[in-house]
């Protein structure tokens, strides 16, 4: 009998795990058809739970190594975002010509379950379980459809995932042990913090750790890219919020480093992104840039422990905003490419694009205000620096978005057969509504306050001028396109990682080729038909055993033997005397 008080937590958790059913359904031949049809809607129960289930969590000691499930404010925000984006992506996928649908929706559901459930767990083990489930099943989504390019991208993706998981679990060990009351007060605490920052930094594409992002996004099927960029990256954010020892003095040394990395990501993403030639790659770099801003918020909270709650709110709000907008953009990319009439799509897409840059009335403006509130109290010179730099980042975002829309508009003509159906259009529409409305109906006080604030003239101007400048610069670049177009693509999509990846791919593929063409003496196939053994070379000189044999025949010789007997007799007589 489950006590009534635990019901909410259970409900939320169970709702989050509903996609596991569709995943299983896709695996079993009998249920495959219906599971594929139901998979897009598998996140709906979770969304309902996010809306309806009250806060509260319970420990479940028997599950895995003992986990804790339930919802709190942050979890609820992330769960809502995740559920909406997955539903949109699912609907879009349902309306897209995807090959091998059973497998796609199976993996899709599995990743969805992981992503939803990690929002509903509040302890390290539970989070790690679902984090891994999400990240690993996504590999299948990235390489879905097969081919050399996808395999390479998948390889990069999985390498980063594995490294991240290893670092993450190492950091979580310390937290787990601390829960048991051991090891927390030592040097392990800061080490654990550092490990978590790096591990989640990989997931969030922080500059330097971002190598997989612009590789994996373009090759994945569009719905997968949408969830990848829209919500899976945010799992990193949620992880940071959950497991960093926020609000404690020990985090202060990390603060400035994190802020620095955040800012670097924000600018680097924009700077590299504008040189890209594939729309989805541009979006990937935009994600690097945008998540850099979230990182800045987290860093501020670390630097000023008192600001941690505010930083959490900022990160959460920004995550929701970016998640919706970026997912819309990804889906829109494909929608535009498949539409015979591209202009309406482009117009629709400029909403989330501009929202990212901070367009008033849209989610971006609200998010940026919350962010600014948090960073306004950053320590020392940081406050002023951020005040100056954040708008410039918005300029960068605008440029990126302009580049993106340009690439979408210039994309190859659509094929008539692949015209998107109502499901696909509806999915994008759902997200657009989200971009427009979510932050306005957000229940938390601060957000409502910021939303109203964004309508004040000061903030309107602050929101507008970077967008305006960005558009102006973009127009100038476009006008001078005879010159500037030469720069398109000068930075490879993997930027600084390009030579590393090329080398690693080369090594691995070379080895594969070597293995695939068996050498004259292949590894012994076990229990396979054997070849006749080579004749042993004749020994050139008598072996030790043969020498022993010669000696033995001397010993066996009668005179020798009896003489030995006599010697022995004399010896024994002497010893006796």
């Amino acid at each position: 009998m489950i006590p009534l008080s635990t019901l909410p937590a259970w409900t939320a958790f169970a709702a989050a795990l509903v996609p596991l059913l569709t995943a299983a359904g896709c695996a079993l031949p009998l249920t495959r058809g219906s599971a594929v049809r139901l998979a897009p809607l598998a996140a709906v129960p979770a969304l309902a739970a996010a809306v309806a289930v009250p806060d509260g969590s319970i420990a479940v000691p028997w599950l895995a190594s003992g986990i804790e499930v339930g919802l709190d404010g942050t979890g609820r925000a992330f769960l809502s975002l995740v559920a909406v984006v997955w539903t949109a992506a699912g609907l879009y996928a349902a309306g897209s010509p995807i090959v091998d649908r059973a497998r796609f929706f199976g993996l899709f559901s599995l990743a969805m379950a992981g992503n939803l459930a990690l929002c509903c767990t509040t302890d390290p083990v539970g989070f790690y379980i679902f984090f891994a489930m999400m990240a690993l099943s996504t590999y299948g989504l990235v390489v879905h459809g097969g081919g050399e390019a996808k395999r390479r991208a998948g390889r990069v993706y999985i390498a980063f995932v594995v490294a991240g998981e290893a670092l993450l679990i190492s950091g979580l060990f310390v937290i787990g042990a601390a829960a048991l009351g051991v090891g927390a007060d030592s040097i392990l605490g800061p080490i654990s913090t550092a490990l978590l920052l790096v591990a989640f930094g990989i997931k969030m594409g922080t500059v330097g750790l971002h190598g997989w992002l612009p590789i994996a996004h373009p090759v994945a099927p569009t719905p997968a890219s949408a969830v990848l960029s829209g919500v899976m990256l945010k799992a990193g954010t949620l992880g940071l919020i959950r497991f960093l020892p926020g609000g404690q003095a020990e985090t202060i040394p990390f603060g400035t480093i994190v802020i620095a990395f955040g800012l670097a990501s924000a600018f680097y993403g924009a700077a590299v992104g504008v040189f890209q030639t594939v729309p989805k790659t541009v979006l990937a770099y935009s994600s690097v840039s945008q998540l850099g801003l979230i990182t800045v918020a987290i860093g501020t909270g670390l630097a000023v422990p008192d600001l941690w709650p505010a930083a959490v709110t900022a990160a959460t709000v920004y995550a929701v905003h970016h998640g919706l907008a970026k997912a819309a953009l990804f889906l829109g990319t494909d929608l535009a490419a498949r539409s015979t009439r591209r202009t309406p799509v482009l117009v629709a897409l400029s909403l989330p694009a501009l929202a990212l840059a901070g367009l008033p009335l849209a989610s971006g403006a609200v998010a940026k205000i919350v962010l600014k509130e948090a960073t306004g109290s950053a320590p020392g010179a940081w406050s002023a620096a951020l005040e100056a730099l954040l708008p410039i980042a918005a300029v960068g975002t605008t440029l990126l978005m302009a580049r993106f829309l340009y690439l979408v508009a210039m994309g190859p003509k659509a094929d008539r057969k692949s015209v998107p159906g109502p499901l696909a259009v509806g999915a994008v529409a759902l997200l657009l509504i989200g971009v427009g409305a979510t932050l306005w109906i957000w229940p938390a006080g601060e957000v409502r306050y910021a939303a109203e604030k964004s309508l004040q003239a000061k903030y309107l101007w602050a929101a507008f001028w970077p967008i305006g400048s960005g558009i102006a610069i973009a127009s100038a670049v476009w006008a001078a396109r005879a010159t500037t177009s030469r720069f398109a693509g000068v930075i490879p999509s993997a930027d600084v990682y390009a030579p590393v990846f090329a080398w690693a791919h080369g090594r691995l593929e070379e080895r594969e080729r070597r293995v695939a063409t068996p050498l004259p003496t292949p590894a012994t196939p076990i229990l396979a038909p054997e070849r006749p053994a080579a004749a042993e070379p004749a020994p050139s000189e008598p072996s030790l055993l043969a020498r022993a044999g010669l000696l033995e025949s001397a010993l066996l010789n009668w005179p020798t033997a009896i003489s030995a007997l006599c010697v022995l007799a004399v010896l024994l007589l002497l010893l006796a005397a």
Partner: protein
Amino acid sequence: MTQADLYTVAGGVLFTIGLYGLITRPHLLYKVLALNVASGGVFMVFVGVARRVPGPAPDPLPHAMVLTGIVVTVSSTAYALALAKRIFTETGMATLDSADTMEGGEDAAE
């Protein structure tokens, strides 16, 4: 040196001579005879030992043992000779170290 000691020492010498013959003579007949010489030596030692008790009468026990020993030696000599003869008929030689004694095998009992 008493008479008894003389017997004893002579017995030892005989034993050694027998031993020498056993080593140096390859022919089986010689070997068997050499062993007989050696056992004669041993018996002489026994005879000498019988004198160890004080008084005119020797200890009877070693004599009894010598008798037993002679019986044993006679029978074993007979047996050894029979065996040597058989070897001669089979191999045409009467030596031990014929080339193939270490090889070959027991024939399967049929």
